[in-house]
């Protein structure tokens, strides 16, 4: 096998996880779509900023800041969808040469610690939202862009990613157990 597809394992039919998977999948598709729109908007914003500067000698307020903030949506919102469809990039050359069990264990291990890591990142970021909201923190600039929506977007992206990783871990265990059963 040459691929590195460690995304969502195909669940055995009738598994209750399937419903959860499909529900999550809809949200993920929507999030990827939003990320695409933000990417498009980012290109248009930069171009408009250049055009305004060169043609009429004015600048779009906080253009640089807005591009940086857009990056949060472009990068984080699709993470979960990517995990389901293709998986994150991994090195398979060694496990490919080992008995099947090593690869399976690695997959489960990866998804479990991934859930913990990205779950922690999501949780810790979201935990600071109430304060940023209550104290009305905003970025220095002309538009007074508040801080909290950026953290919320980041939290949604990372949170979905963590949930998907957890689902992958559970799916792996189920697949592992059922295929073990099939071998016997």
């Amino acid at each position, binding site marked *: 096998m040459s691929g590195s597809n460690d995304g969502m394992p195909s669940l055995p039919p009738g598994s209750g996880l399937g419903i959860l998977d499909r529900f999550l999948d809809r949200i993920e598709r929507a999030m990827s779509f939003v990320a695409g729109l933000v990417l498009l908007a980012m290109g248009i914003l930069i171009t408009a900023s250049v055009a305004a*500067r060169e043609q009429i*000698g*004015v*600048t779009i307020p*906080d*253009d*640089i*800041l807005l591009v940086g903030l857009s990056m949060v949506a472009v990068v984080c919102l699709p993470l979960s969808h990517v995990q389901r469809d293709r998986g994150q990039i991994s090195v398979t050359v060694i496990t490919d040469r080992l008995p099947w069990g090593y690869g399976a264990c690695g997959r489960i291990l990866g998804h479990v610690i991934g859930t913990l890591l990205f779950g922690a990142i999501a949780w810790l970021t979201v935990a600071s939202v109430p304060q*940023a909201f209550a*104290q*009305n*923190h*905003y*970025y*220095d600039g*002309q538009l*007074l862009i508040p*801080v909290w929506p950026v953290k919320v977007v980041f939290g949604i992206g990372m949170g979905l990613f963590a949930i998907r990783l957890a689902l992958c871990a559970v799916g792996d265990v189920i697949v592992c157990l059922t295929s073990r059963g099939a071998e016997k």
Partner: protein
Amino acid sequence: QTRELRYADFGPDRGTRADAIKWMDSELRARSDGALGLNITWGGTLLGAKNAIEGAGNGVADMASVVPVYEPGKLSAWRVSDIRPVSDEYIGMMATYDLMTQSDAAKADFEAQNVRFVANFTTGPSQLLSREPITTLDELKGKKIRATGNFGKAFEENGAAAVSMSQPDVYQALSTGTIDGTASYAYVINSYKQYEVASNLTTINMGQNLGWGIVINNRVWASLKPEQQELLTQLGRDTTLYLAQKMYESRTTIMQKLRDGIDGNTIVEHEGAEALSKSLNDAAEKAGLDWLAREKEQGLSEADALLAAFDAAVEKYTAERDANGYPWAGSN
């Protein structure tokens, strides 16, 4: 055995600011007889400009260089020092140092972030570096100038287009004419080699950025012995004074170097652009006061008192300098 305090700086390990941090390290070792020292990480590899206050408060680093403007909602009182157009390093830094160590509002601000103020930094006064000479308001009209924050608003007010771009982009942008000029500091012109691509420098003496400096984590502070705390307090003030002297001197040296030419690049200095300078400074100050009014609305209730205290301190240090000269003048 030396207890090395972990120090995080987001900038390069060169230049006057870096030298002051290194000086602080060696003084700390000497004055504490080797009990204390700094373990410095440069370049933002541990804490960047955007998370330094938060990181120092949580103990990521024991001490850190911090800039409140990059971390919304944190240490706002410090930014009061950025409103007035004070162009003298010594006066600006010492006034800010006094404000940060004596004002209760400022102390409460640091307390809320679980840090303690140690020393103050500065950028030095801001000047206008441009491809073509810009000495009058007329010449400024329609020009594209890289400037951020209150300076950006000031340039917009005076008919220029204020372009924001990251500092590493400025070199290429000046060289190809994407921008006509940049509001810059002597050390930035020097370290980013901006003199290679723009050769006109107009003295506009816009204010310094005084809202940055060194903080120490409260728990680390509490773990120091009383005499070590006293030592560090004194060293913080000495470091501020040391940096004021070195920034003042390096600005003079850098300017002389630029006039003489580096690798064949010389700078033409335009002085006496008083009308331009006044108009820009007034607009920047107004933008600063607008900011302060907003902060007051948002809950910085001591805003006026802070500004008044800063003004009083500036007045005091100005009088002192006018009477006695700079404190370091005699020692050299």
